[in-house]
């Protein structure tokens, strides 16, 4: 049971609206996003339900959902939404709010996805470019799943799909500085 009527002001809704640039109150629950979304079956709350949860101010439950981590940003939903809500940006807004407020879901899939993104981000921070083999390897190490996708590796390497060499942006320092500055901006606002 969800207890309502205890708070008049829905600060969560306001925060999500401001960050996403859409007005979630416009959602009339038609469900077009749900059947459009290629990964709604994998989400514990599909987009339509997330919208209603935000409307009801269910902050904690929303943060613990895996939906915004599974969103592919493929924009199929927003292209079909009759109320023109930018659903991927709403998902992004919720994700960023959860990161800002340091809420970590204990869903193993979400953990995996976060690890992937963290590795990716680290890679860009250090080299300015992405290097797929190394990323795969590091991901497998950090998720303790050493042999995942290993059956693909010999074939891919043999066919020269994944080069062993490594590229780096000449001014990798510039990227590192950029990251620090961006982080500072995030904190100051």
């Amino acid at each position: 049971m969800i207890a309502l009527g205890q708070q008049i002001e829905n600060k969560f809704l306001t925060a999500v609206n401001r960050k996403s640039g859409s007005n979630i109150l416009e959602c009339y629950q038609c469900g077009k996003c749900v059947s459009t979304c290629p990964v709604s079956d994998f989400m514990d709350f599909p987009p339509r339900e997330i919208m209603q949860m935000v409307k009801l101010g269910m902050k904690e439950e929303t943060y613990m959902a895996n939906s915004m981590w599974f969103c592919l940003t493929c924009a199929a939903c927003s292209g079909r939404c009759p109320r023109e809500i930018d659903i991927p940006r709403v998902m992004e807004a919720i994700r960023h709010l959860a990161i800002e407020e340091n809420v970590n879901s204990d869903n193993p899939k979400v953990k995996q996805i976060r690890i992937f993104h963290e590795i990716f981000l680290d890679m860009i921070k250090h080299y300015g470019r992405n290097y797929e083999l190394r990323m795969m390897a590091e991901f497998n190490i950090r998720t303790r799943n050493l042999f995942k996708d290993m059956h693909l590796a010999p074939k891919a390497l043999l066919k020269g799909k994944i080069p062993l060499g490594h590229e780096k942006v000449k001014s990798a320092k510039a990227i590192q500085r950029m990251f620090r500055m961006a982080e500072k901006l995030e904190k100051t606002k």
Partner: protein
Amino acid sequence: MARVGVFVCFCGANIGDFVDVPAVVEEAKKIKEVKYAIDYKYVCSDPGQQMIRDAIVQQRLTSVVVAACSPRMHEKTFRKALSDAGMNPYLLEVANIREHSSWVHQKNKKAATGKSSDLIRMAVAKSIANEQLHEISVPVTKRALVIGGGIAGIQAALDIADARIPVVLVEKSPSIGGKMAQLDETFPTLDCSQCILTPKMVDVASHPFIELLPYSEVIELDGYVGNYKAKIKRKASYVNFDTCTGCGACWLKCPVKVPNEFNMGIDKRKAIYSPFPQAVPNKPVIDAEHCTMLIKGKCGICAKVCEKGSIDYTMQDEIVEREIGAVVVATGYDLWDPKPYEEYGVGRFKDIINSLEFERMVSANGPTGGVPVRPSDGKVPKNVVFIQCVGSRDEAKGIEYCSKICCMYTAKHTLLLHHKVQDSHAYVFYMDIRAAGKGYEEFVKRAQVETGATYLRGRASKIYKKGDKLMVQGEDAQIGQVVEVEADLVVLATAIYPYKDNPDLARLLGISYDKYGFLSEAHPKLRPVETAKAGIFLAGCTQAPKDIPDSVAQASATAAKVCGLFAGDTMKKDPMIAHVNNEFCTGCQNCVNVCPYQAIVTEEIPLGYGFKELRTVAKINEGVCQGCGSCVAICRSMAIDLAGFTDMQIINEIVAI
């Protein structure tokens, strides 16, 4: 010298408790022009009014000021008192010392008293500049023009004509009947549309007070309420209606086949055609765009087979003029084109049809003999998916509004499908079921129970082809699961969209329309039948989406409005309208541009002083002017003034305090 009488009302305690009324009277007496001032408990009561009447006669008053409630309340009452005493009623002014003083300054009697005195001073000053005004009478041509021969136009024409008022009914297509003639059965009673409509169509054709002009369009409307002049183009039909018997020999023999508009293009008609068997008038016309005789001069078969010799390939469009007093616009609707729904594969998949196409298919006199079929292979469908709100309630791809009738006709379609194809199953994607109307909710329940149709709450998101089936994806929000329906046929409940030529027609008539093209009513709640232009009324879907009962009700309402307008030989009008002083008018025509009613035209008058030349001045049509005063304020040479609110009156008020 002005002699003003001031009557201050206590309004029981309403004014008396918060304003020192006797003091106000004393103040009023100090005004030079005030010859008589008195207070009374209720000036609006009979004795109060008698007091005014007596004073007017005894004191030889030239104007009267009543200090009481708002003029929006009792101005008419007091005006009548004045005219009863033989005084021009427009010599009255009301000082609003109740709503504007006693009620809003209840804690400050001194200030309220002072303010009341000021308001009386202003009213007195204004009344000195008041002029005698007389109600305007405008002659009326007692004939109505009805544009559009659908059910709304038919109903309006019949109701007006039954009041023995002549009606000109203009219909652009060869037959009246409109969209309703295309329907099979109608909700919520499932009575056959043709059976209830065709008797009315025949009544129109035979009514002594109705002049039916089919295959015609209104191309010009001049004049103003009660005195319009309409130009109507009678498109060349190439058939002499007077001699044609409607035998049908011509269209049986005509070799040219054209997609049949009446059947939504599902089958073909001929180049000479009557749209449907029950058409009124049941006379064919030649479609000039497709007739080989008219395009290339070859063929002429219809003329050869016509025993009456009614075919005339040389016929030209003809313009006729009619003098009329009022117009009823009933141009109806078009179906919204669902092309933007690319996710449904509209245009790519043949087996997606719209609801009117479905309606034609299930009609007993339809192109498929009353059985729905798949356009791709002609097979009878078993699984039919109905998608509601296609275009409606979708500001991204369609329109914001609800089309109002789709929930109901989709429920009806599930029933019709069930009746025509026993072993079929209907799936309905809906968002909400809006069944507000007499017997409507009951009807939806009946459809759901009788047919066992599967209602899925959600907007369908995608249709794709798998083999010869259409796969329809959507969420059923009731169970929170994505569903996929294997369909033989998909029927889109496309939105109601205003008739495409509405904006052109609106400009021609001088009325306004909304962003979609629906014609605008004068007030959304209290004047839903009138337009802002006096004497032009709206009926049916031309104003907003409506079902048949609503369209018929509004049509009858327009008839009542027209009859009311034509009740006397002349129309009475408020005299508070603008007037031009030709002496000052420079002919700049700024006023012509600002007038929201196109009430101002220009005229040429002699220059005067013995010169022969002419000069242009503004001329206000007093039948049309509503008295807003826009032109007065824009006039640079102060040539225009507004009776009842003249510059002099208002300036007098301003300087009076």
